[in-house]
């Protein structure tokens, strides 16, 4: 048993994190930067940061993940990383020739106090940034927030460096996409198209981190929000932010900068969150909800009603990121399941407030965020009273095996299964996929473990 060290008796921990349910800011900034077309993420720090982020993203997406690094040395830590970054900008445009370089900081460059505004303007003065190219940047100290915070900071940087308002508002809705899979974004775009709503989605990782095999390696694949679209977000008439943690900051900044009003919704995972998204999009884009979408919803309801007894009362433990956990919890409740334990390492109040509301009618439900909200805590709760299903990233596999609990992979990172890049979890189609996955996991488990005389052809 890999986790034989876990006891059901909760131990008191003052400082220690065991098996974290989060990671650090820079990887979020790197991920979001891939959602801008022709963008090379740049890690301003030690070489290892960049290597770790690239490896982690590669394992999850199974795609080439290319980013550059300032390669800090001993000298940088004493004299600051300015020289490294100026040199890096020069190297990047000479060799890799991206349209945009998106610089993010690390714990080291933040602690030694590098001022990116000043460094980038120096690079510009020194003529290191070619005509028509751009260097944008954001601050992502690893000791603040989590990977989600880093993602949010990158989105805010997109607004800061691109969004521009002319006098004329266009009949376009911005969709600020929270941390989700490229497949989830693809589905949201499909739904918007089906509704004939004109949208600009940012960031947009479709066709960047889910490209096909053609025999050619493209360093800058065809996908990603274009700079033109990113600039035009300032002229859109409304922004829908999907996921409070990852998009609120960008939405607020865009409103302040370009007077684009906004509403932050949950990522449309599950029935109710999708309802809210569709209604908002319909209202703000001023388009009706087409029959085809209503039918998708009806098919989801049909699936749920057909299988309701398998959902009923099942206890579920979840972990991951707040923007996905909130609508996921809500969906499980809609399915008549019992989300009893919910953990996120990402700190912040909104999660606690929403969970408190959502879980009012789930007796015995526990949730925790921020410090010490880690996989060890979750496992201790499970040891005290077990659950029927686990939903979360690959780091749950040890608990699943030790406790023999069915397990659905959902979130980041998923390093041991395929599918997250193909089957969306967003909108009605995504909710259907998710409900089917839940049923498969529960029913496979039942078939595998029930007494032989109880194995039945029809379920």
């Amino acid at each position, binding site marked *: 048993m890999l986790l034989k060290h876990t006891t059901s008796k909760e131990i008191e921990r003052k400082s220690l994190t065991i098996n974290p349910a989060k990671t650090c800011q820079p990887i979020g900034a790197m991920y979001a930067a891939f959602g801008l077309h022709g963008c090379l993420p740049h890690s301003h720090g030690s070489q290892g940061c960049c290597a770790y982020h690239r490896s982690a993203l590669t394992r999850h997406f199974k795609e*080439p993940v290319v980013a550059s690094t300032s390669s800090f040395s001993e000298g940088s830590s004493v004299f600051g990383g300015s020289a490294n970054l100026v040199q890096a900008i020069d190297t990047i445009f000479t060799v890799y020739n991206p349209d945009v370089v998106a610089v993010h900081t690390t714990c080291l460059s933040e602690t030694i106090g590098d001022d990116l505004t000043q460094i980038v303007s120096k690079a510009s003065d020194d003529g290191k940034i070619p005509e028509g190219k751009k260097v944008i940047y954001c601050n992502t100290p690893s000791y603040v927030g989590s990977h989600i915070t880093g993602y949010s900071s990158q989105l805010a940087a997109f607004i800061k460096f691109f969004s521009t308002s002319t006098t004329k508002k266009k009949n376009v809705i911005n969709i600020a996409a929270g941390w989700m899979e490229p497949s989830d974004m693809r589905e949201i775009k499909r739904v918007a198209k089906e509704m004939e709503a004109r949208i600009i989605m940012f960031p947009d990782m479709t066709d960047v981190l889910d490209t096909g095999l053609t025999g050619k390696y493209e360093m800058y694949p065809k996908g990603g929000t274009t700079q033109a679209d990113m600039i035009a977000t300032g002229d859109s008439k409304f922004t829908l932010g999907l996921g409070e943690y990852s998009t609120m900051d960008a939405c607020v900044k865009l409103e302040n900068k370009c007077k684009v009003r906004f509403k932050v919704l949950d990522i449309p995972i599950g029935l109710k969150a999708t309802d809210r998204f569709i209604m908002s999009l319909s209202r703000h884009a001023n388009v009706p909800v087409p029959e085809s979408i209503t039918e998708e919803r009806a098919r989801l309801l049909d699936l749920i009603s057909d299988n309701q007894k398998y959902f009923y009362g099942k206890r579920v433990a979840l972990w991951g990121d707040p923007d996905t956990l909130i609508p996921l919890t809500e969906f499980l409740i809609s399915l008549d399941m019992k989300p009893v334990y919910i953990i996120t390492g990402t700190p912040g109040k909104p999660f606690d407030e929403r969970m408190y509301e959502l879980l009012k009618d789930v007796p015995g439900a526990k949730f925790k965020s921020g410090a010490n909200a880690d996989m060890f805590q979750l496992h201790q709760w499970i040891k005290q009273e077990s659950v029927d299903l686990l939903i979360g990233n690959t780091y749950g596999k040890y608990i699943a095996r030790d406790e023999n609990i069915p397990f659905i992979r959902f979130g980041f990172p998923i390093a041991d299964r395929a599918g997250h890049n193909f089957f969306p979890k967003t909108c009605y189609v995504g909710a259907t996929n998710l409900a089917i996955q839940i049923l498969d996991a529960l029913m496979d488990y039942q078939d595998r473990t029930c007494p032989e005389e109880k194995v039945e052809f029809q379920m």
Partner: protein
Amino acid sequence: MSYILEERKKQIARVGGTVKDIDCGKVSLAGSVSQRACVFCGSRVVLYPVADALHIIHGPIGCASYTWDIRGSLSSGPELHRLSFSTDLREKDVVFGGAEKLRQSLDELIDRHKPKAAFVYSTCIVGVIGDDVESVCAQMEQEKGIPVIPVQAPGFQGSKKDGYKIACEAIFKLVGTLDKPTPKYSINILGDFNLAGELWILLEYYKKMGIHVNASITGDGRVDDIRNAHNASLNVVQCSGSMIHLAKMMKEKYDVPFLRVSYFGIEDMSDALYDVAKFFKSEELMDAARKLVREEIGRLIPALVPYKEALSGKRAAIYVGGAFKAISLVKALRLIGMKTVVIGSQTGDKDDYKMIQELCDDDTIIVDDSNPVELSAFVKETKADLFIGGVKERPIAYKIGLGFCDHNHERKEPLAGYDGMLNFAKEVYATCMSPVWKFVK
């Protein structure tokens, strides 16, 4: 070649070409998409397999998250090394210091897990914010009665290779602190990390020869074995990049001689066994080695035939961490009829590259500290059919339509020894001959 920077031209050579001495061991140029990692990474991968030690990472959360159970080093007993412990330094710790947080964490952990030793890794900012990790470790060592070893591994203080050195020094602190009786023919295995259970294959071979493996450092490693490591007669060092420093220190202080070996491919594997027998000047051991090699090769060669037939004439590109491994791979590939057309490493030194130049055919491209742009251009130019590398190279190889073999942490089948050679052939065959490539081209 616009994809090669002026500054990097001396880090690339062609066998038979004009560049003779590769300019290696340099820090990566800022702004390059280097495939290299950092000092912390180097120390962490080397120490990680010590399974009954506590490994705690003092720093912001990332470094603990990214190194949680990614090594693939198997343990035959304890699994403590596979958990992730972090002090998760936050903004207030950066301002007020994190030493107390570390002390509390160690206190809790050592009491609960009763490890044989603790390794305390400090990452980039720990030194900058001025935490006195040494004194926390010293205090804990005294209180808890186990070695608590600081591993000062700020990422920026050099390359991954420097991290290996720091790890060697951490291990060296343990060596010589325990004395157990050791048999006559006693060796330590240095530089095998028991990926996919490779160490266990080697143990079997040495056992058959009548040689006692005193300590395996660090694959399936145990603290007490390491503490007693100085009582072995010989250090057998693989993956020279990571462990040669330890071997040299043990030679100097405890007069334990060392041998450099590799366990990949038939020739190198057999040499590893013969060289050890030779060292002990024992006919008995040599006979046992000969018998073992004869039996194993007798089994292996016929088994390799179908793979060799299918793969004959195919071309391989190699880009791995250490150059010593790359050299073994060239030989192993030859054994299955394949030609190496590109060969590179993250951390090779001058001698390594010289050996490669002597070993490889004319026009083979040799490269130090490369990046995806260069690698994909080299592969295209040389019409390679196979890429051997690590996690970051895999999807690039696939995108170009090449077969791929992971010779790094993510290998799933043992590739060492004679059985490993067969696994390697099978893996290369499976990926090169996969029908999927036919649909792409």
